[in-house]
């Protein structure tokens, strides 16, 4: 068995450090290096980061505190029956973690995130706080117009802070950088689909999560190297089944849980963990004289399947089945955060679609700070064994 290249280990260590730095040291350092730079924090799932980049800003993903921070104040702000993510976010906001952030965006995904935007307003965090209410109407002249106006509002918010007027040239440049970012991510996933042992699910997660807190130029460089390094053969295949993880697009599972699933005999060949980074499917046109229009069009026509998008007539179930087949997966693990309405309300239909397609599945729920994985490991192990033995 050949060992992983040392350079890969170094890069993955760096990603790991970045991914869980809840003080966002890299982003704050980046901001301090030049005048007019701004930091805009955003919650899951998706914001058009190209706009922030073109405004000389850094979009920083705020994914909760996970199991890396003790939640004290956050629990005093939320009842027991509300998911865990906003507790960690408000805890970070009330501590110093989010100091130096200029603005915050709360994408329309559920009522908890929506109301969290109001809590930030009441707590007077950041120079601007916006609920990013992207349209649920996908007609260009209706939802498209509204979406464009919404983005222009945020552009104006940023302009008021740093005085940077976004040029079309700058926007096209940002679009091209994020296109490359998505291409590299897809390359990484494609290699993992065939050779999942070369990059563990945990390492892949760290790479993806690091991309939420560094500038796209740096992340692209890291990805270029990682993709190149994992293109060569090393490691050894295990007798694992191949699964797709579904339902973890907002509150993130603890690393221990991802590790437990893999150790239980399941290669995770696709997931929706960092869906925001992969939201736009394919490239956005980076060569037009209206880059904003390209971003709007991409949202309307190239958005990934998501529980945050109105989906009548275009069932997510069918698309999950396609994803499983495309990845040559053996089954699906429905893995949603407790009290996550969007994921949990979609689950019965997704399960039904899997049943109809003969795809095996199991489900469990988690909190971002779940600390016990024994049951999950046993459940995933049994799932793996049952597929290996009977399917």
């Amino acid at each position, binding site marked *: 068995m050949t060992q992983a290249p040392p350079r890969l280990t170094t890069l993955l260590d760096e990603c790991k450090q970045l991914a869980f730095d809840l003080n966002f040291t890299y982003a704050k350092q980046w901001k301090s290096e030049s005048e007019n730079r701004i930091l805009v924090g955003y919650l899951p799932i998706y914001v058009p980061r190209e706009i922030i980049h073109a405004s000389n800003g850094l979009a920083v993903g705020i994914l909760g505190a996970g199991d890396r921070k003790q939640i004290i104040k956050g629990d*005093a*702000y*939320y*009842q027991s*029956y*509300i998911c865990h993510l*906003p507790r960690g976010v408000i805890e970070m906001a009330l501590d110093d973690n989010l100091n130096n952030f200029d603005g915050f965006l709360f994408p*329309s*995904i*559920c*009522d*908890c995130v*929506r*109301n*969290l*935007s*109001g*809590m930030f*307003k*009441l*707590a007077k965090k950041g120079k601007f706080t*916006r*609920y990013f*209410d992207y*349209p*649920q*109407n996908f*007609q260009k*002249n*209706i*939802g498209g*117009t*509204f979406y464009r*106006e*919404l983005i222009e509002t945020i552009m104006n918010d940023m302009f008021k802070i740093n005085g940077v007027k976004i040029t079309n040239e700058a926007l096209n440049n940002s679009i091209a950088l994020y296109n490359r970012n998505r291409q590299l991510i897809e390359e990484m996933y494609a290699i993992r689909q065939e050779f999942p042992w070369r990059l563990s699910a945990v390492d892949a997660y760290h790479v993806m999560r690091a991309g939420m807190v560094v500038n796209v130029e740096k992340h692209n460089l890291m990805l270029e190297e990682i993709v190149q390094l994992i293109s060569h053969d090393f490691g050894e295949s295990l007798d694992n089944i191949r699964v797709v993880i579904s339902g973890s697009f907002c509150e993130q599972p603890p690393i221990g849980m991802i590790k437990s699933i893999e150790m239980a005999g399941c290669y995770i060949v696709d997931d929706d963990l960092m869906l925001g980074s992969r939201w736009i499917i394919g490239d956005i046109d980076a060569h037009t004289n209206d880059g904003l229009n390209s971003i709007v069009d991409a949202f309307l026509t190239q958005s990934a399947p998501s*529980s945050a998008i*109105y*989906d*009548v*007539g275009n*069932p997510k179930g069918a698309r999950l089945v396609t994803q499983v087949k495309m990845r040559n997966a053996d089954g699906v693990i429905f893995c*949603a955060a*407790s*009290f*996550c*309405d*969007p994921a*949990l*309300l*979609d*689950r*019965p*239909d997704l*399960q*039904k679609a899997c049943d109809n397609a003969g795809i095996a599945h199991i489900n469990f*729920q988690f909190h971002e700070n779940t600390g016990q994985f024994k049951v999950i490991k046993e459940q995933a192990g049994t799932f793996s064994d049952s597929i290996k033995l009977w399917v």
Partner: protein
Amino acid sequence: MSNPKDAIKEKSMVIQKEMLANLFTELSTAKENGKKVVYTFVPGNLTELILALDMLPVYPEINALQSGMRKRSGSYIKDAEKLGFSEDVCTYVKCDIGMMLNGNIGPTGEKLPDPDLLLLSYTGCFTFLKWFENLERLYPGVEIAMLHTPYQEDGVITDDQINYMVKQLKEEVIPKMEKVAGKKLDYDRLEKMLGNAAKAEELWVKVLETAKHRPSPIDSYFAGVYYMGPLNTAFRGTEEAVSYYEELYKEVNERMEQNLCPVTPEGEMKEEKFRLVVEGPPNWTNFREFWKIFYDMGAVIVASTYTKVGGLYDQGFRHDPLKPLETLSRYCMGCYTNLNLPQRVDLIEHYIKEYKADGFLINSIKSCNSFSAGQLLMMREIEQRCEVPVGFIESDLVDPRYFSYANIKNRLESYFQMLEQRKIIMSQEEAHV
């Protein structure tokens, strides 16, 4: 826990009961009579549009709460959970789906007709969106119209938002409704209905404002949920609704002039000891027991946020017949759960001051994140701004597993003791001055 006797009803309640009975009869014969049926939601409802096109509305949340009050929701919810719905998610959705799985029998015992149109007026609650995705799967092939109501994220309604909504109405929602109804929308008729809506809204506000009187002649929460029924559901825009609110206002006004306290299911309250503002929906599975805890202690709810989920009329909004589509858009965006948190806090502060409340209470609902997420911060804000005792209890909409009578009663009794103590201290301080 005592066994509540049969409820004592005011005349307006009898009228409303008849209105509802007629509606459900009409619904049960809708298919034979060629009437088209529209399933839609209460917040941001487009009742005038539905009625102007001679269609009949059905409100799944109302069915769910009725199932809760009739003690059927528990089994419906379990049936939905057997289908794979998590214990964690909204119980209105599960109750509604369970009811459909069990034959879709309405509150009068008659079967509700299948929908010809699912009109998703997506206002103030993200779960609505998921709810209707699920309904669409239960009624494959049904026509669907979606109206996305932007959230008042910055505390104002912008021109961009209005244009977005008007365009949706004009280019997508109304054409879809016309297609299902098989007729063109008669704008004259719509405008007349919007005029009727404004009249009823005016009367409703007068009713609500009687609670400023001491003693309040109404309970704005427990009775308020009945009073708001015709305006929030199938009757807004009708002359029937105007007549109902005329009668209700007359009744309430008479009570106010005679300095009477609210009517409860067990008769008239004898004394108003505490005036409260309440945030959050009530529990429906144990509604009467829940209410009884309050009236037994002489507590009257003088203003509530829940009675504003179907429209914030007391803050000045009226449907405007001269701008039909704009007014419908403004209406949808103005419903309580479409306000941002700072607006909600401001409104509650206003109620506490305007209605001279002694305290503020939150009934936090397990399965309603739209209301519940952020309530603990709201409570702190109110405590700081208004310096009144605040209380916090937890229950659910229609899941009987989450209503703990003893816990709620204990908490409320402690809260009322705190209010009592405060009154004594304040009166002593006043005496010293």
